[in-house]
């Protein structure tokens, strides 16, 4: 038979039982659309989380002082205490020593600066303070940074005014959320003065709103960035000192050159710091934290989650495909007599087989096309909702990989599911088929 005739007969078969055909098609549609939606949303989230992690300083390395993990086993000799006293100095000499509070100091910055891969070093001193503006008060988090370095390494962007710059002293940059804090009654604008623990500062810049997941989570909230030197003179409470010692930092941020050997430099940093701080692996009193590892592990979790959800969606794809097989088996059974008639009037096995195969192909193709369209729409709706929640601009996104896999699987499984009953149909003996009622 000519292909056109086979197609027409197959199409008539699809048409003849509209309800069943559509139910089968719906099964395929749901399978494809759900795989597409899940894979695309998963990929989108992965991208967003990665971006957010980068915003949080993904590729910068942070060094903090910390107690050795097993400090109880460590004996602190008199000598090592006096050595370290030059760096910060506390703990009185005696027979029994409490483990000292480890600190990061200017010495560590100098040590790090000698490492070839290091491009920027920023120091952070953090504290909390009371902010007074327009007669109202709120509590804020203040991060003291190196005004000459921080603007270069931060992912934050200034929305109004300008960033900190070298030479700034009583200037601050504030978070967008703080500028619009309802607790203050009115908006803080650039060049206005604010009081921090009673001391006066000029707002020189307001940061742009955080995008992505971070923005959705409220960003950094009430934070203020100022030159770190200022933190030392900022008393936290009315009682006085905020406990911040001059030239002692809460953390050191290091950014490497783009082409630097990341892992190697990380190791080198640890080694030189151990040397200069006279500690070994056991007594190490600092911790080098690299956001990159974190980023990678979060990425792994998300891709694992996506794979798991895609697997679930894949099951619905499989169910849709068995729907095709079921429909095909039923229609072969239902058409047994017609198969007999067609064979009696000269139709060959391959004609019968092709008719049923085309029938299956049409169902899976229609299901596939509608599934892709619906899947695309569903994906966009999901992304639109997400972007509304996160207050980020809506972007069209579609996982090509997910779409291709979903479509291929549905068509291939649909055809295989159609093939077996089609073959059974074609091999019916005409005399048996004709007798079938």
């Amino acid at each position, binding site marked *: *038979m000519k292909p056109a005739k086979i197609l027409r007969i197959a199409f008539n078969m699809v*048409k003849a039982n509209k309800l069943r055909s559509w139910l089968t098609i719906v099964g395929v549609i749901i399978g494809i659309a759900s795989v597409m939606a899940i894979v695309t949303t998963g990929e989108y989230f992965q991208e967003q989380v990665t971006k957010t992690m980068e915003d949080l300083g993904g590729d910068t390395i942070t060094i903090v002082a910390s107690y050795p993990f097993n400090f109880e086993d460590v004996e602190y000799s008199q000598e090592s205490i006096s050595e370290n006293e030059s760096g910060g100095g506390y703990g009185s000499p005696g027979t029994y020593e409490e483990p000292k509070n480890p600190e990061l100091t200017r010495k560590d910055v100098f040590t790090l600066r000698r490492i070839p891969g290091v491009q920027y070093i920023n120091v952070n001193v953090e504290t909390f303070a009371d902010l007074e503006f327009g007669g109202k008060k709120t509590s804020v988090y203040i991060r003291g940074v190196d005004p000459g370095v921080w603007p270069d390494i931060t992912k934050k962007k200034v929305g109004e005014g300008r960033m900190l710059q070298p030479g700034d002293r009583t200037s601050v940059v504030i978070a967008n959320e703080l500028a619009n804090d309802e607790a203050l009654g009115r908006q803080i604008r650039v060049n206005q003065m604010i009081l921090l623990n009673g001391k006066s500062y000029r707002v020189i810049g307001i940061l742009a709103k955080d995008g992505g997941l971070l923005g959705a989570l409220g960003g950094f909230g009430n934070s203020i960035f100022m030159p770190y030197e200022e933190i030392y003179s900022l008393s936290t409470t009315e009682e006085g000192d905020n406990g911040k010692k001059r030239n002692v930092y809460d953390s050191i941020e290091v950014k490497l050159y783009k082409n630097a050997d990341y892992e190697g430099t990380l190791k080198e940093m640890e080694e030189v710091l151990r040397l200069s701080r006279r500690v070994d692996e056991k007594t190490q009193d600092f911790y080098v934290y690299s956001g990159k590892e974190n980023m990678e592990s979060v990425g792994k979790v998300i891709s694992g989650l996506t794979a798991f959800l895609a697997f679930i969606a894949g099951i619905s794809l499989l169910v849709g495909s068995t729907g095709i097989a079921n429909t095909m088996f039923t229609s072969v059974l239902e058409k047994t*007599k017609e198969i007999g008639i067609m064979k009696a*009037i000269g139709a060959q*096995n391959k004609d019968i087989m092709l008719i049923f195969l085309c029938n299956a192909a049409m169902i899976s193709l229609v299901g596939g096309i509608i599934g892709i369209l619906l899947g695309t729409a569903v994906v966009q709706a999901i992304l639109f909702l997400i972007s509304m929640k996160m207050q980020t601009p809506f972007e069209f996104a579609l996982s090509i990989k997910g779409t291709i896999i979903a479509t291929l699987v549905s068509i291939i499984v649909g055809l295989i599911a159609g093939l077996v009953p089609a073959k059974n149909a074609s091999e019916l003996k005409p005399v048996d088929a*004709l007798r079938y009622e």
Partner: protein
Amino acid sequence: MDKTLIAFRDVWKTYQMGEIQVNALKEVNAEFRKGEFTAIIGPSGSGKSTMMNLVGCLDVPSEGEIFLKSKNIASLEESDLAALRGKTIGFIFQQYNLIPGMTALENVLLPLEIQEIDDDIAEKRAKELLTLVGLSDKMKNRPSQLSGGQQQRVSIARALASNPDIILADEPTGALDSVTGKEVMTMLYRLWKENGKTVIMVTHDMHLAQYAQRHIELKDGEVVRDEPNQDQFCPEY
């Protein structure tokens, strides 16, 4: 020239019914010649239907040989058999066996489409045949929209579509009332008489058998009588 179209040589057909072997046909020998109107008669269970399936190449014998236009059908592949069937034999069934999803015209077109006849020629021929059987105004109707007699006429038109040598009719009036049955029989008679078709009809009805010029009577799977019908009925038309 040998006018034999179909020859049965010691044909056995055995069915396995559970543990019992049933011999539907026992050593049947028969010949059907071109241009003959033969009726295969006998009570139910005599092997008529089995014989009809074998004549129509819908089945192959268990033993013995059947030659259709001097080809041994037992030696043919299913697809060759189908092709041979399509070109040589036109079926008329008791239950019409039209395809319910297709219109009258599409049903008549089907054998031509199977044989890949050009659309124009096929459509012209199908319309001619439907006009011949008096259904020129029902071409777009589906079987469910036609009466039994009309359906059987569509099935006659379909049987004639590929211009076969043999028309094989299985109880062609079995599902029809006597008036319509007569019309259908007259149509078959005319096909034989005027168009020179070979007609083989299977029936248990001796009245119908009177239209034929030759009777083959079966009983318990054996041919008990094979002789010309002396009192052939010639309908008026």
